[in-house]
């Protein structure tokens, strides 16, 4: 379209130029033509004066002759002699013609060309005297014939006439004296007087149009006939033309015998009877200013050619640019596709890895395995960090990374940063110093995430590139004069690392470039960290400052203007940090929602498992579907409080499924929030998902915290409940089995205190229980063998271990007997030892439950209402023979601890499902009612 407009505009300009030039030239030509025409007419009129003078002169000669003849009453012979002597002009002749013989015969001073002796002349058949002798002619000054063929010499001639009276045989005879002039003589005289008109010609016609003098360009024997022959006209047009020509002066354009336009100007020759002098000139000769059409056409086509040439070049360049742009776009698309694919393909398994690992971390009792798992978590997060770096870089390049300022707690940010960096530093054996200005305002407004990201990058780099020594992380602030509500947050990270050469500092800011590549090849990273940091800081109005001494260390710092929300100092940061460190590994659900019913859709069963596991403690009922079709089917049957829908699925992907869900008639989930689960974390995805109708999206690997935050945001508020109160304040990570609380002989808090942690306590109980039988057997054996000392030692051990697990009563009993043993009080030992061992055995028997109930005890207890709902759902599925759904409900119930009173029924239900005895389920469910 643009191309067409440009080409059109160029053509219009060219045509406008040509039009203007032609119009201007045409105006000039017309103006010149008018002037020339007027001048030509003026010249014609002037020429008429000359002609009139000439004719009057010739007539005067003729009149003189006639007067002389009349005066001397000459005879014919005398007159002829006189006339012969009077002729002076070569070619001219004189004739005496009698008009009374009917044939106009007479005598000529010139002999007949074919007979030199013959001087007679006859005008028989040549009608030239009618007008001459007319009364009209008599009144004119000049009496001249039309052009005729002189019978004497065959020359086209005209004759000036005057009547004379001759003496013939004593009588008077009227005659005409003619002064005959060949037209050729006159034609030579009649040359257009103005040298400006070299091609002009002069003709003279009589009132009938017959030529007196005919110029070479005039054809025919009559001017009007000539006009009619070569100009389209009818009889009335011709009459008008004749009228114009013979009655006045003027100019006209006519066509000549070559059908070329010619200008004629005409004016009456006054002394004659109706003669008209006509000047003639081809228009092509009179137009001094003419448009050279050929030249104009050449210019025009040259301009067009130039335009076409320009357009061709323009189009060529345009096409090249378009192709280049297309290639760039394709490359960008390829990059985006690659990033998208990479993101998806890496983040999907990472979801499983980190999710499962999270579950391992949550549930593992083995410290060694937990340590391994922690390594997995760290490495996984590092890998995610690399991917995120690339994704962030892609977002920055695409201009789709936005700075979102929110209120944030600086202490929280510092917690996270120090936590991350300190672990990494400690792992490398580096010292890590934190230097926080305690007066720094705690509550600020800014992009917490990007600030944290920027600092994380430079902290990570500091740790990465420092082999020994320490890393110092400093935070301070400066007030901004005149802006009491803003501060300049000063951040610096100093290390004693390898340092950077002066010439390499700039390379830090180049994407994918790493300084000292060979030296640092063992250090993982994409080379994007500083580039991203710099970009983020630039976007936030700051810039990274680098001071470095090669081999000694570097200082990375920046100052960032932040709005202060509340002037509360960050204070004793270390205390808060230590506390947070202590609490760091505890997981505690943000909420519980036992009445909530959500649906998760993912084609990967492991992902579903991870998803369910992460939310297990929230008590929500979670249905799962492994395809879009299944999702639609389930969503059409049940009302869910939230739906988590995976994007990338075979057959029908999340967006298609979302579309169908929206179009589903009578959809019970029409208003249900739908959150997209995606491993695509590249820029632009958010917009795409929101546009597709999703309410939000969560990237994989799923961040448990983000997941719970999202649920909190979208789940109906009336279904959200606070988390279960912690029964073990000291170790929330481990749930103390419920039955332990029912054993009055043990003091659990005391036991945990002794053991250092709930986990250790549980482990200790397990060990206490497992070793009880052996201990009892040994004590009895030693006692029976009379080995009082060893018996006493074993009782001492029993005292200690019992007290460790909080079995204070048993411990006190054992202490009493220990004292008895040490005192050698065998009687007392004999009396009371069996009771001690009995108590010990009873306690361990009860504690042994921990082995079989330990896991179930960890599950959340299902509420009566939820259980009732589950049973109702199962009955419903039973009616519709939907065994899969029944099995699904059983799966869900397996994630809960069933109240003891319902355990028999639960066992039956579970067995029925396991054994595919679905038909028994209605009866099992109705048992309670009977």
């Amino acid at each position, binding site marked *: 379209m643009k191309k067409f407009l440009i080409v059109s505009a160029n053509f219009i300009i060219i045509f406008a130029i040509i039009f203007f030039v032609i119009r201007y030239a045409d105006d000039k030509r017309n103006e010149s033509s008018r002037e020339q025409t007027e001048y030509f007419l003026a010249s014609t009129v002037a020429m008429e004066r000359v002609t009139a003078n000439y004719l009057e002169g010739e007539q005067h000669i003729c009149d003189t002759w006639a007067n002389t003849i009349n005066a001397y009453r000459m005879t014919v012979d005398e007159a002829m002699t006189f006339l012969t002597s009077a002729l002076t002009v070569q070619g001219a002749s004189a004739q005496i013609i009698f008009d009374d013989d009917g044939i106009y015969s007479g005598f000529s001073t010139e002999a007949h060309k074919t007979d030199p002796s013959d001087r007679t002349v006859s005008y028989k058949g040549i009608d030239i005297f009618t007008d001459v002798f007319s009364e009209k002619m008599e009144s004119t000054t000049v009496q001249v014939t039309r052009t005729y*063929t002189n019978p004497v010499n065959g020359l086209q001639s005209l004759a000036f006439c005057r009547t004379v009276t001759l003496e013939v045989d004593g009588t008077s005879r009227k005659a005409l004296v003619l002064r005959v002039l060949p037209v050729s003589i006159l034609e030579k005289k009649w040359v257009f007087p103005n040298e400006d008109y070299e091609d002009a010609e002069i003709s003279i016609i009589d009132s009938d149009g017959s030529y007196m003098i005919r110029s070479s360009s005039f054809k025919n024997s009559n001017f009007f006939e000539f006009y009619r*022959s*070569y100009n389209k006209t009818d009889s009335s047009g011709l009459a008008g033309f004749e009228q114009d020509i013979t009655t006045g002066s003027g100019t006209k354009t006519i066509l000549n015998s070559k059908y070329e336009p010619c200008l004629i100007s005409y004016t009456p020759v006054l002394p004659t009877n109706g003669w008209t002098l006509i000047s003639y000139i081809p228009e092509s000769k009179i137009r001094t200013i003419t448009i050279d059409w050929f030249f104009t056409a050449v210019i025009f086509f040259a301009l067009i050619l130039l335009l076409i040439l320009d357009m061709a070049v323009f189009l060529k360049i345009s096409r090249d640019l378009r192709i280049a742009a297309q290639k760039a776009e394709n490359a960008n698309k390829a990059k985006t596709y690659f990033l998208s694919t990479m993101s998806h393909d890496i983040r999907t398994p990472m979801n499983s890895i980190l999710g499962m690992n999270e579950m391992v971390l949550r549930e593992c009792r083995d410290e060694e395995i937990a340590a391994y798992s922690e390594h997995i978590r760290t490495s996984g997060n590092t890998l995610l960090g690399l991917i995120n770096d690339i994704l962030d870089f892609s977002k920055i390049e695409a201009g789709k990374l936005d700075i979102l300022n929110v209120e944030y707690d600086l202490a929280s940010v510092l917690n996270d940063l120090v936590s991350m960096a300190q672990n990494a530093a400690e792992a490398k054996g580096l010292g890590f110093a934190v230097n926080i200005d305690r007066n720094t305002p705690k509550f600020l407004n800014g992009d917490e995430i990007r600030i944290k990201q920027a600092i994380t990058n430079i902290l990570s780099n500091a740790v990465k590139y420092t082999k020994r020594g320490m890393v110092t992380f400093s935070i301070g602030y400066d007030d901004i004069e005149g802006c009491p509500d803003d501060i300049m947050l000063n951040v610096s990270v100093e290390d004693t690392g390898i340092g950077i050469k002066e010439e390499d500092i700039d390379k830090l800011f180049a994407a994918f470039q790493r300084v000292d590549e060979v030296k640092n090849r063992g250090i993982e990273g994409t080379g994007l960290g500083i580039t991203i940091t710099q970009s983020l800081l630039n976007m936030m109005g700051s810039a990274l400052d680098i001071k470095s001494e090669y081999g000694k260390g570097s200082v990375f710092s920046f100052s960032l203007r932040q709005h202060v929300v509340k002037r509360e100092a960050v204070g004793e940061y270390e205390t808060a940090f230590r506390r947070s460190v202590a609490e760091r590994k505890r997981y505690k659900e943000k909420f519980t929602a036992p009445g909530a019913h959500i649906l998760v859709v993912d084609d990967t069963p492991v992902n579903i498992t991870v998803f369910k596991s992460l939310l297990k403690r929230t008590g929500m009922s979670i249905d799962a579907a492994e395809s879009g079709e299944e999702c639609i089917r389930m969503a059409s049957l049940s009302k869910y409080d939230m739906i988590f829908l995976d994007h990338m699925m075979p057959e029908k992907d999340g967006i298609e499924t979302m579309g169908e869900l929206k179009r589903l008639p009578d959809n019970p989930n029409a208003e249900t929030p739908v959150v997209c689960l995606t491993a695509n974390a590249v820029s632009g995805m958010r917009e795409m998902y929101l546009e597709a109708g999703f309410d939000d999206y969560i990237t994989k690997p799923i961040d448990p915290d983000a997941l719970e935050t999202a649920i909190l945001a979208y789940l109906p508020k009336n279904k959200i409940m606070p988390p279960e109160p912690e029964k073990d304040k000291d170790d929330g990570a481990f749930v103390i089995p419920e039955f332990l609380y029912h054993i009055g002989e043990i003091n659990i808090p005391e036991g945990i205190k002794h053991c250092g942690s709930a986990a250790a306590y549980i482990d200790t109980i397990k060990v206490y229980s497992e070793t009880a039988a052996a201990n009892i057997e040994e004590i009895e054996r030693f006692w029976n063998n009379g080995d009082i000392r060893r018996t006493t030692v074993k009782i001492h051990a029993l005292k200690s271990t019992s007290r460790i697990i909080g079995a204070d009563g048993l411990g006190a009993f054992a202490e009493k007997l220990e004292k008895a043993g040490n005192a050698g009080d065998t009687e007392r030992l004999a009396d009371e030892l069996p009771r001690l061992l009995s108590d010990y055995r009873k306690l361990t028997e009860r504690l042994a439950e921990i082995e079989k109930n330990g896991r179930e005890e960890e599950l959340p207890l299902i509420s009566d209402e939820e259980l009732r709902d589950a049973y109702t759902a199962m009955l419903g599925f039973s009616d519709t023979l939907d065994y899969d759904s029944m099995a699904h409900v059983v799966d869900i119930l397996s994630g809960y601890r069933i109240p003891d009173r319902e355990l028999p029924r639960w066992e039956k239900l579970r067995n029925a499902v396991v054994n595919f005895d679905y038909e028994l389920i209605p009866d099992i469910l109705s048992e309670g009612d009977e």
Partner: protein
Amino acid sequence: MKRTMKTITAAALTVIMAAGIAGCAEKITQDPGKAGFKPSLDTNAAYTMKVVGHYSNFETLEEEFNRFTEYYPNAVLTYTALDNYSKSGSGILSTALAGSEAPDIFFTYPWIYDWPDGGKIAEASEDLSDPALGIDLSCIRDNLLVRDDDGRILSVPIYTTTYGMLVNENIFEKEGLTVPQTYSELVSVCRELKDKGYAYPIMGYNKGTDLLDPLFDPYFCAQIRADRKALSDLNEMREGAGEYMRSALELAADFMSYGFIDAEECSKLENNYEAVILRFFEGDVPMMFATGNTVSGTQKRESMSEAFTANPFSYSFFPVPSTEEGGYFLNSVSLSFSVNRNSNNLEISNEFMRFLICSDELNSMANGKRMVPPCKDMSLNSVYAPFMDIDAGRTINQSELGLLDTTSSQVSKACWLVCSGVMTVDEAIENFGSLSTE
């Protein structure tokens, strides 16, 4: 990219050069009027040449001048009509030829050499068959080229003519009639037209001797063309030679007897040319006897006739059906050109004749003038279309016939005397040879 630029630049320059060359070429080779003509003189030299004749206007010749000057742009060619040119005895041509401004080319007619100054005219005429002149006479129909006793060809036919009748085709269409192809049809059609109210179903020239010539002359010539004795007797005006006219005279008398042609009405026409044409253009005359010379004036006069301009109609020139087999195409030379052998401009005059004497130019001249061209490769103006249907056996060349001018005059006079009722057929035959032709 560079290659594309070069291609575009080269194309642009080529177009510009082509445009330039085209512009120059226009000046060098301006559309030649005649493909076969090759100028033999210096085309840049100045020339003058004068043609004289009796035509007061000769546009078709002037068009030839224009075409010729495309080869010789500096040639000034003029045509001048001389008074009394075609009048035998005026001597104007011989006078002009002897004058100081003698013509270079002049009109001649087959009978001109019979004029009192015919000898002088012949003497002044160049032998156009002289191979040295390079005039290609082969394009002229052989029987139109007349050689004198010395075998010279002193004139070359430019126009030929024939007898026929102008037919107002609109009237025939309107009345549901077809143009007569036989004599009986002619009579029948005339009768029907008369009955339909056409006062003058057929008209002709005003001068008595010419009135029935279009019917009579072709028929008469057809009777004697194969009879050498008759021709000889007629030319010699031997006693009894008038008998050869009998059948023709009887035909004329028969046609006159029907009263379809009103001699008195015809005599009102001022002349046999413009007046006849304008009368025909009045639109109420279905048929008008005429010659090709009259037809030559029709085109120009269409616009001069107010009646024709107001109510134009279609017309053609048909052979007059004098027999039951149809009419004849009696072809005779109307106009020839001769070259003044004493001309001061002989070279350019001969060059002009070389240019003119060819089928293209002669056909062009004849078509423009509505005359019959003299060339073998004849192209007739559409108004002559009916003559194209006449077979060769009914085509007669008057020159070849050898009828002397004087004989022709006696025959014409006899015809008129019979038509006008002055004489009977027998009387006319009897008085053949002594009929006054004044």
